[in-house]
């Protein structure tokens, strides 16, 4: 009897203990964002949206001003560009690797995994000079291209997995119906791997969205993204934590929204692991 009750209680207690640090952080995060004048560093004196004033007020920045919306727009542009590049390349490469036999295919696939294992930050110096020589350093599309390159190796594997799931007969059927390889890819395969397209896009989008190191290093200080904007707020003498929390909350809404919106599709993704500079 006692044993049975214990068996019921122990898992709950364990879960609560494990979850407690995270819960505390989240609760503190929300309290700070929506509270004013903290006592004991956690209990707010009153609730308000005062911390969200950056939504309608410019942000003082050195001698000049900027707004949160500029940084937000930049981040959307950066992440969407990166997602688009990753998706386009992975959908083409994934199809080829799934369906066409060529020399060095296995080597290429293994190489992608090895490339994925290389940590993003160690490539920074090389990428810096590469972008400099091509002439796209300090520009959001250029940096998005570099950021996309980090997610492409695993993205290719993801895309290949989706294409592998399409029966050979369907492809043969389309080819015998008169389709060229490109038509088969475009008219038959892409509609059938829609979840895959969504997953790969989100993959590219999310990692670019929360990227800091690449954005910080390769973009000039005058071009702010959300991550670098928040960082610059940290670099002041007096840190307004409520303000920071509020902005971080806004920063985290789009990826959260995407996750919730496309949760079911994302759960189908065979491999999921982070990479790059966070």
């Amino acid at each position, binding site marked *: 009897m006692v044993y049975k009750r214990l068996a019921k209680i122990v898992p709950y207690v364990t879960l609560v203990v494990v979850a407690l640090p995270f819960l505390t952080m989240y609760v503190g995060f929300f309290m700070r964002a929506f509270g004013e004048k903290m006592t004991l560093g956690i209990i707010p004196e009153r609730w308000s949206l005062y911390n969200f004033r950056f939504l309608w007020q410019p942000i003082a920045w050195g001698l000049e001003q900027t707004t949160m919306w500029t940084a937000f727009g930049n981040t959307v542009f950066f992440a969407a560009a990166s997602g688009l590049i990753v998706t386009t390349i992975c959908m083409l490469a994934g199809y080829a690797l799934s369906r066409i036999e060529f020399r060095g295919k296995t080597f290429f696939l293994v190489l992608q995994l090895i490339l994925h294992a290389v940590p993003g930050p160690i490539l920074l110096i090389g990428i810096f000079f590469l972008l400099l020589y091509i002439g796209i350093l300090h520009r959001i599309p250029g940096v998005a291209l570099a950021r996309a390159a980090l997610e492409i190796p695993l993205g290719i594997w993801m895309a290949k997995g989706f294409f592998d799931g399409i029966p050979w007969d369907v492809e043969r059927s389309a080819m015998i119906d008169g*389709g060229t390889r490109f*038509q088969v890819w475009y008219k038959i395969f892409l509609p059938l791997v829609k979840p895959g397209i969504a997953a790969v896009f989100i993959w590219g989008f999310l990692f670019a969205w929360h990227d800091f190191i690449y954005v910080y290093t390769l973009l000039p200080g005058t071009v702010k993204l959300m991550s670098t904007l928040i960082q610059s707020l940290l670099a002041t003498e007096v840190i307004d934590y409520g303000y920071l929390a509020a902005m971080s909350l806004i920063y985290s809404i789009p990826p959260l929204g995407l996750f919730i919106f496309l949760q079911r599709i994302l759960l189908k993704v065979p491999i999921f692991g982070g990479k790059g500079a966070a």
Partner: protein
Amino acid sequence: MRVFLNRVSKHFGRVKAVDELTLEIGDREFMALLGPSGCGKTTTLLLIAGFYRPTAGTILFDDQVVNDLAPRERNVGMVFQSYALYPHMTAFDNIAFPLRLRKVPKKELEKKVKAMASLLHIEEVLDRRPGELSGGQQQRVALARALVKEPRLLLLDEPLSNLDAKLRITMRAELKRLQKDLGITTIFVTHDQVEAMTMADRIALLESGRLQQVGPPEELYNLPTNLFVAGFIGTPPMNFLTAVLEEAEGKLFVRGSRFSLPLPEAIAHKVRFRGTSHTVIMGIRPEDITIGQGEIQGEIYVVEPLGKDTLVTVNIGGEIIKVIAPSSFRANPREHIRLAFFTEKIHLFDKETGKSLLI
């Protein structure tokens, strides 16, 4: 259109999937490629469709060598075993797909799709997606899609194997009629000898990538060239018994452990002419044995009533044979009975090579 395979081989590494296959399929002919799984029949079909390039040999459509033509350049219609419908398109769009790729004007396209749908009785399901169709309807859509572009050649890969038994018999007849009505050269792959026998004008029987025999169904049934063909064609399969040939009193006898039968002159002549080896394999079909009378002694092993007749398994001197008896026949296991072989229908094969001695 006539299709000619001239010593076509297809190797995958060391495996010879198709080995020096020479086969001619006549204009408007319905040809079955028959054989057990792994015999190379589907590979042959994919070679003709253009998905594989032959390792050696040439494939001709009429007088044109098509070895280097891509599938889309061959104007071939194909129905796959899985039907391979495009799941994201309606039945209409599936059928229209080949026409859309050819940029057929919208009005003409609609007319052609409708005509094809009415020919195959699927007008009511045109707005449905493959997932909402029954197996039989899916097959008709696949067939319509293959035929709508008016191909020179129709290829069918095990088209009936995914249908239930009843529908299969219906579709068998319908496909045969459709092929004759449209007059389109058709090659049809199957592992089911009944399908091949019932539908095809001619059957090409393959085994291990090699052609065993090609001819009209009744020829494969009545005059199999070797043991493999004899054993593959016909249900229940032919009985094989080890026997020796003996000459006595000017007659040729075939003697087994429990029987000695004089061979009819027609058979004896062919065998003598060949100057054959002594030991042979004698083949006799279950329907060419009479039960209840005759010289040969046997013991009932089991009796299986089939409705229109009865399948009897008999043990004669340690060798098991199958006999088709009238539906009224009944007997208990271990009962002793007498059998008679219809000697005109005896087949004889060389024990070493397995080749028929009667051809």
